[in-house]
């Protein structure tokens, strides 16, 4: 039961504060009708169950599919194949995203039908596809990520001067809509797969960053669309707010269309996967069965989650926003801060990102620290949005321009892993919860604030959420880097020496050698051992302590370690160990350790032959 229970407890831990806050407001400052309150509670339960099942589905289906696709991309033997496949993946996961179509319709309506909704959806999907393809080339070619992102945002800045503020907001909104519940986990998994295959020293930092790359696609696409069509202003008003009546009725009404929506969103990717499995992967039945189960979980989980959010949380958000803006105007920035902080932790992608950080760094970077920084960022974003609603003179670019500029500058001084995580965080934070609950809250507040424009101010909220976590995590990364650099002292040298002669004849006994090394030493260790006559090896990624650990606001930062296991001919194991010890200079503190144990003679020889009397000595 453990895996399912793990997901449930993870989700409930992040959901409880949200429910507690809303209930607290309902019983003190905000007057809410009973049916809406009950529906909120039903929605919370649906959200809990749906998100837990969805996360399970991501584990079972999205991650392996992403990894398979990554293998396919990385091992393609021609540039055009890599380009086509990565573009296709980016395009397909985006084009079916329901949020994007909603946004398209909103923009079409607001622009007086001069911009076609379908055109927006396709432009944005092409934008994502192109960015994913570029990002894939960047990763596989091993080019600098901060430089790549700085160039990308440089282009965005230049274009930003050519478009109106409304379209600037819409552009960032499109990026938030694209990085939805389904696309973000998939792109994360794809990146993880690519980095694993690429291997080498940069595996860890390569595991992140593609969501950041991808979210630039829609921004560029919408800005270009605005410049090409000459569209500048958005008019109109948001539809009047009408809370749904009843308790169970609205929930049941929401479920079927949401289910269809989720199915449509999942379909193109699944189709591509099955097509490729049929023609290329040919997975084992068991593995394929798991993925099919996982896809079903993903579908059911997503449908339940979105139903809960749409039916239970949206009306509640509007009412809280309206009521607070009307009666306790000054409270808006504070409440916005608290709300942003805790609501973001219920975002599905935040959980997926946490899992990925755990996996990719071997647990070196505490996920909690990332989550806290992320939620501080989002809290500030909502707080800033509230200020923008209350004071019309405060413009969106007051926040966006310096925020992104600082983040880009810091990216060059930040721990490389954090740079990827930070750029990803923008897309990760602007998921379905922000797009519904928080947005509804902001729109409610805007509707009751004189001088605020519901449509324009509403659009800007997601842009803010897409910026602040990038900044906050980049600051964390820079601080982290400073601390790490202080601690880094030793550097090892590799001396040339004559190789050991391997004794002739078949090995009769084996030793198992295990080296526990700081990350980065492993490639060298493997080369030294190979030169000394060792065969293949297996490497495990982990974390460990070796006396001098660093702490970071109460978080213990263990060093990243690699455990390498060899099976060696017993006659040369001692020499190989001696070589490793000397060449890697392991006498220093914390650099690594080598352990040896005689393997029992019941296995097979290195040549692949079974020992004849394998059982006799032991039974």
């Amino acid at each position: 039961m453990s895996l399912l229970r793990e997901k449930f407890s993870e989700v409930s831990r992040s959901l409880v504060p949200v429910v507690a806050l809303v209930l607290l407001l309902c019983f003190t400052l905000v007057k809410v009708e009973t049916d809406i309150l009950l529906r909120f509670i039903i929605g919370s339960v649906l959200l809990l169950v749906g998100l837990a099942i969805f996360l399970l589905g991501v584990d079972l289906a999205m991650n392996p599919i992403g990894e398979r696709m990554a293998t396919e991309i990385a091992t393609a033997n021609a540039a055009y194949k890599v380009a086509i496949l990565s573009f296709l993946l980016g395009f397909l996961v985006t084009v079916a995203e329901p949020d994007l179509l909603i946004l398209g319709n909103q923009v079409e309506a607001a622009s007086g039908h001069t911009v076609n909704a379908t055109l927006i959806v396709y432009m944005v999907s092409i934008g994502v596809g192109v960015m994913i393809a570029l990002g894939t080339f960047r990763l596989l070619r091993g080019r600098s990520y901060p430089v790549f992102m700085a160039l990308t945002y440089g282009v965005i800045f230049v274009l930003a001067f050519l478009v109106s503020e409304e379209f600037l907001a819409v552009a960032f909104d499109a990026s938030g809509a694209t990085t939805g519940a389904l696309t973000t986990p998939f792109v994360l998994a794809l990146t993880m797969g690519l980095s694993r295959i690429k291997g080498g020293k940069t595996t860890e930092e390569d595991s992140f960053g593609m969501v950041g790359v991808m979210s630039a696609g829609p921004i560029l696409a919408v800005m270009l669309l605005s410049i090409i069509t000459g569209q500048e202003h958005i008019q109109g008003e948001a539809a009047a707010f009408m809370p749904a009546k009843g308790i169970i009725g609205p929930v049941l009404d929401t479920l079927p269309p949401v289910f269809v929506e989720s199915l449509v969103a999942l379909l193109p990717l699944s189709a591509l996967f099955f097509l490729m499995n049929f023609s290329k992967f040919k997975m084992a039945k068991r593995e394929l069965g798991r993925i099919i189960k996982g896809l079903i979980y993903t579908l059911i989980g997503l449908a339940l989650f979105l139903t809960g959010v749409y039916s239970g949380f949206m009306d509640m958000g509007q009412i809280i926003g309206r009521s607070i803006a009307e009666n306790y105007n000054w409270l808006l920035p504070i409440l916005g801060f608290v709300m942003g902080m805790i609501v973001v932790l219920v975002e599905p992608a935040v959980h997926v990102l946490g899992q990925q950080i755990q996996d990719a760094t071997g647990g070196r970077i505490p996920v909690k620290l990332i989550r806290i920084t992320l939620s501080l960022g989002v809290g500030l974003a909502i707080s800033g949005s509230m200020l923008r609603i209350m004071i019309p003179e405060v413009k969106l670019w007051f926040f966006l321009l310096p925020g992104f500029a600082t983040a880009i500058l810091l990216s060059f001084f930040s721990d490389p892993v954090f740079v990827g995580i930070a750029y990803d965080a923008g897309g990760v934070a602007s998921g379905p919860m922000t797009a519904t609950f928080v947005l509804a809250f902001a729109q409610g507040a805007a509707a009751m604030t004189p001088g605020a424009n519901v449509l324009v101010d509403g659009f800007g909220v997601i842009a803010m959420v897409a910026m602040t976590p990038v900044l906050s995590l980049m600051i964390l990364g820079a601080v982290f880097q400073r601390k790490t650099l202080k601690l880094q002292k030793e550097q090892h040298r590799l001396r040339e020496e004559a190789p050991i002669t391997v004794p002739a004849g078949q090995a009769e006994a084996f030793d198992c050698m295990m080296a526990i090394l700081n990350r980065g030493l492993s490639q060298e260790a493997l080369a030294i051992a190979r030169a000394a006559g060792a065969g293949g090896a297996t490497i495990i990624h982990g974390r460990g302590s070796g006396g001098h650990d660093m702490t970071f606001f109460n978080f213990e930062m263990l060093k990243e370690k690699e455990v390498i296991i060899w099976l060696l001919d017993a006659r040369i194991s001692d020499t190989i160990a001696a070589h490793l010890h000397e060449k890697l200079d392991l006498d220093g503190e914390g650099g690594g350790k080598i352990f040896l144990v005689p393997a029992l003679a019941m296995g097979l020889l290195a040549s692949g032959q079974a020992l004849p009397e394998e059982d006799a000595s032991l039974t």
Partner: protein
Amino acid sequence: MIPDALFFAVVDRGKAGGLLHWARDKGVAGGTIFAGEGTNPSPILNFLGVSEVHKEVLMLGVTRELSQQLFTAMKDEFKMDKRYKGIAFVVPFRQWLPQAPAIPEDYDREKPPPFVCLITIVDKGKGELIMDVARKAGARGGTIVHAHGAGVPQDIYFPLLIEPQKDMILIIESRVKAPPIQSAIFKEMHLEEANNGIVITLPVLRTIGLYQPRGDRKGGRK
């Protein structure tokens, strides 16, 4: 003191950090943690595809004397001898240092240890299959660790070191029950052919937490 044993503990994900802390208070110099997965043999969970249990493996370099103290403390403080609390075992790995050879000249390779640790390394995705085979041959449980092989440069468009993904399966058994399990894995996975994988057997001095089923080998997990 030169550490002459590696102390392994397999516990639920998230608990290894605390255990490492605890061990350091007991005098252990340092340790390494990596992620693993346990499996639950329940057919219902298996059908639902959720039979995986997230685990963590903690590895401590200790002296044998210290390892005995750790065992006692684990029993007293963590009740590790009870079911579902995780398992711990000691492999007589000796640290290699210039002043002392790791394996003494007169080491007797034939002397049977009380328990053994079967380490199977196969291509990624085959871990659960191995567990099925091992269970049929009498194993009670095992831990799957995701690892990768050493990189092999490939001739493709991108200048990459392809690092083949591997599953490493740890199974602790008494030395009497281990050989049939090993033979079953060997035969079923066709390890006699090159590149199919490898099985290593390491001696284990002592274990705690190996659940003894009443009706003998009826599931159980680690």
